[in-house]
């Protein structure tokens, strides 16, 4: 029992550098800024409370309130705005701008901790208040921001560290949050792969065909898909195997590099073939932060690092 406990503690609190945290911060800053810019034209319409947009914020928040009254919502902040004399459109625009600024601050590492908390809060508010209008990307961004907010910021690559000096961080705590992110990704891919594998369609190419022809993801012309139909069978099976094998092969030093490249290629493919750019970017960011440090430096793969990663004697 004591051996298991010691192993568990050594695994969970393995000392680590803050490079993964810098990657996560920069990536999420970029993602939050993209999220804001992508909704720039529709932000007020999407979150209007009076039903002038698609679905009134009041309805969505009322439904979320039934089971999760303590989950943050835009309605809380709009009420504060009303209290100080700001109209709803002004408050909503202001919140959009603050979220964009938080994303930019995260990107450069200025007021990192505060920016991470604000970005998480406003992002969760937007996601919960527009609950019917969300998709997978929003959940993954919330997950990333939640871990980032709790992690020991600022990292040594942040502007904060240049301006105010870099406080010594406990390498075991850095390792702990890194592990949490790594394990969460394993859960995500394992369950994603498992549920896909249980359906016959992913083994016959039918689900790949349907995914690529289903509006609004049908950006590849049908005649192109028809000519490449045999590839869809292969890709469908590959998606199942890559996802379900992720929790095993991403930990094994011999296969880690290969699996990371496979999963990144899969998400790049999703972006290009289905137009899910923001979804793919958040998955690539989370994967790079979780398993990328040591592989990428300044956008270049260092040969020595590849050697280090593929060395079977190395541990995560």
């Amino acid at each position, binding site marked *: 029992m004591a051996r298991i406990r010691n192993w568990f503690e050594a695994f969970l609190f393995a000392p680590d550098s803050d490079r993964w945290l810098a990657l996560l911060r920069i990536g999420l800053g970029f993602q939050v800024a993209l999220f804001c810019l992508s909704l720039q034209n*529709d932000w007020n319409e999407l979150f209007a409370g009076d039903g002038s947009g*698609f679905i009134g914020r009041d309805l969505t928040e009322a439904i979320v309130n039934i089971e999760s009254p303590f989950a943050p919502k835009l309605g809380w902040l709009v009420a504060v705005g009303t209290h100080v004399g700001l109209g709803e459109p002004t408050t909503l625009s202001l919140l959009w701008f603050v979220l964009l600024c938080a994303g930019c601050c995260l990107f450069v590492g200025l007021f990192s901790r505060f920016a991470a908390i604000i970005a998480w809060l406003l992002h969760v508010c937007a996601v919960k208040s527009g609950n019917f209008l969300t998709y997978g990307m929003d959940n993954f961004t919330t997950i990333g921001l939640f871990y980032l907010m709790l992690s020991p910021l600022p990292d040594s690559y942040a502007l904060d560290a240049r301006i105010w000096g870099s406080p*010594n961080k*406990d390498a075991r705590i850095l390792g702990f949050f890194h592990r949490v992110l790594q394990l969460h990704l394993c859960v995500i891919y394992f369950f994603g792969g498992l549920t896909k594998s249980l359906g*016959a369609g992913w083994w016959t190419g039918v689900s790949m065909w349907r995914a690529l022809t*289903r509006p609004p993801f049908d950006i590849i012309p049908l005649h192109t*898909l028809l000519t490449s139909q045999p590839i869809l069978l292969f890709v469908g099976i590959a998606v199942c195997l890559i996802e379900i094998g992720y929790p095993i092969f991403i930990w094994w030093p011999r296969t880690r590099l290969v699996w990371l490249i496979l999963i990144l290629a899969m998400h790049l493919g999703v972006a290009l073939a289905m137009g899910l750019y923001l979804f793919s970017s958040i998955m690539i960011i989370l994967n790079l932060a979780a398993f990328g440090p040591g592989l990428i430096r300044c956008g270049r793969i260092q040969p020595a690092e590849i050697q280090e990663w593929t060395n079977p004697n190395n541990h995560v």
Partner: protein
Amino acid sequence: MKQRFAPKAFYVIAFLLHFLLLLTVSCQQTFWILASGYTSLPSSLEKYWRKAEAASGVALGQGFDLANPVRQTVSSYIQSAGIEGGYGFFAPGVPNSYKLVFQLRYDHGRMEYDLPHVTDVETGLRLSSLLDEIGRTSYEPLRELMVKMLAYAMWQEHPDAVAIRAVFGYVEMPSAAELRGGKHETYNFLYAYDFSFGGQSDPKQAR
């Protein structure tokens, strides 16, 4: 000087609780997929998957009353951490996509057809999520209210329309073999709602 941190036990307990919730939510969604008969597993097992799904719900506090503070706290935490949904995207199969068409009726019997408007691709993806949500909603009054809000947004762009009929359905794409045989996508009717917003500003007041 090193920063001071909470004791290691605090991190371990927080980790165990967080991952217990994460795994329970993921298992619950997987059991729901299995219980719904969407997989190639024997249907005789479905009753067991249903029980497992219910047990997962109990672990998440869903056995308590909606107003129970434990249930509300657990649910709020799950929502705030972004772990409320499982990860079965497009699993076990890829569902059909839904479509909402508005028939706008004007004075003197003139009619026009229109679709919900979006200004960019990202909002289009979100609209698609909304239509999927409407399609999945089994509670009829909520579904009607959601369609009514979309119809109201459409009426604001066409205020001279005297009535709007919202027709909700799903698009069935042909398989590769069907496409080769000359079959095209088909639009299948599910629901239709008639609304009239003239002289009213609140969609909830509409007929």
